[in-house]
């Protein structure tokens, strides 16, 4: 039987410029494509991944400019579009001065107090 795994991400902007994506989000996409049953919880600084309208364009070293900067909000939104439930800790969102309206569509808020219940609803927790 396929197990359901909750991927917890709290480290933000980890090698996102070099990879042009976020590696935990990327591998979730890739494993979803291989048939994995996954959900994602964004908490801590990683709640920023769900903020819409991010723009990482402009990086340049000398004449070498980055032409395909990361689009983290779009990557997270696409995950939701693939049937991956994406949760965000609403307390962490509020502590960073963000509003629900700042977040992309399809994100499911969960309270900090509700994280334990969310963990309990999954077979395994992978803390990236």
């Amino acid at each position, binding site marked *: 039987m396929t197990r359901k*795994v909750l991927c917890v991400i709290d480290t933000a902007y980890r*090698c996102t410029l070099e990879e042009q994506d976020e590696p935990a989000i990327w591998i979730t996409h890739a494993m979803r494509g291989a048939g994995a049953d996954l959900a994602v919880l964004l908490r801590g600084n990683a709640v920023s991944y769900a903020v819409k309208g991010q723009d990482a364009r402009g990086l340049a070293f000398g004449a070498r400019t980055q032409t395909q900067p990361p689009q983290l909000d779009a990557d997270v939104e696409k995950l939701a579009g693939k049937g991956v439930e994406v949760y965000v800790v609403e307390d962490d969102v509020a502590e960073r001065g963000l509003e629900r309206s700042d977040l992309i569509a399809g994100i499911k808020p969960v309270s900090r107090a509700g994280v334990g219940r969310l963990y309990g609803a999954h077979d*395994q927790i992978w803390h990236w």
Partner: protein
Amino acid sequence: MEKKKFTLVLMDAPFENARTVSGLRLVDAALRKGHDVTVFAYEGAAALTFARQTPHANAVHGRDAAQEDHPLPREWVAALFAAARAGGQTLDWINCGLCVDERGVGEFIEGARRGSPADLWKAAEASDNTLVLGAK
């Protein structure tokens, strides 16, 4: 004790974080207890089995290369492969292929292989449990 299967995901580059040492110690402990282990080396961890890691002297320590006996992650992993063989356990070491290409570390020590996220999921499904040690 019933034989179990355990999958470990490593993400840190060699020589940079104690998480890697802790992860390898977990692999060692699992093998010693007779369990099978799969390691998926993601991002910087794809260099852990790079065959061209080279020891060096250390002038601050006042030792030449032989005296310094610099530990290399590739040697630690090779020792884990040897321990697995000796004990009759399976150690499957999968390096994320794209991560390998990015870093130019495609020369692996014997036993390590190239794979993809689909291999990680396959290993996780076949394992009793999976532990992710993400870079922070």
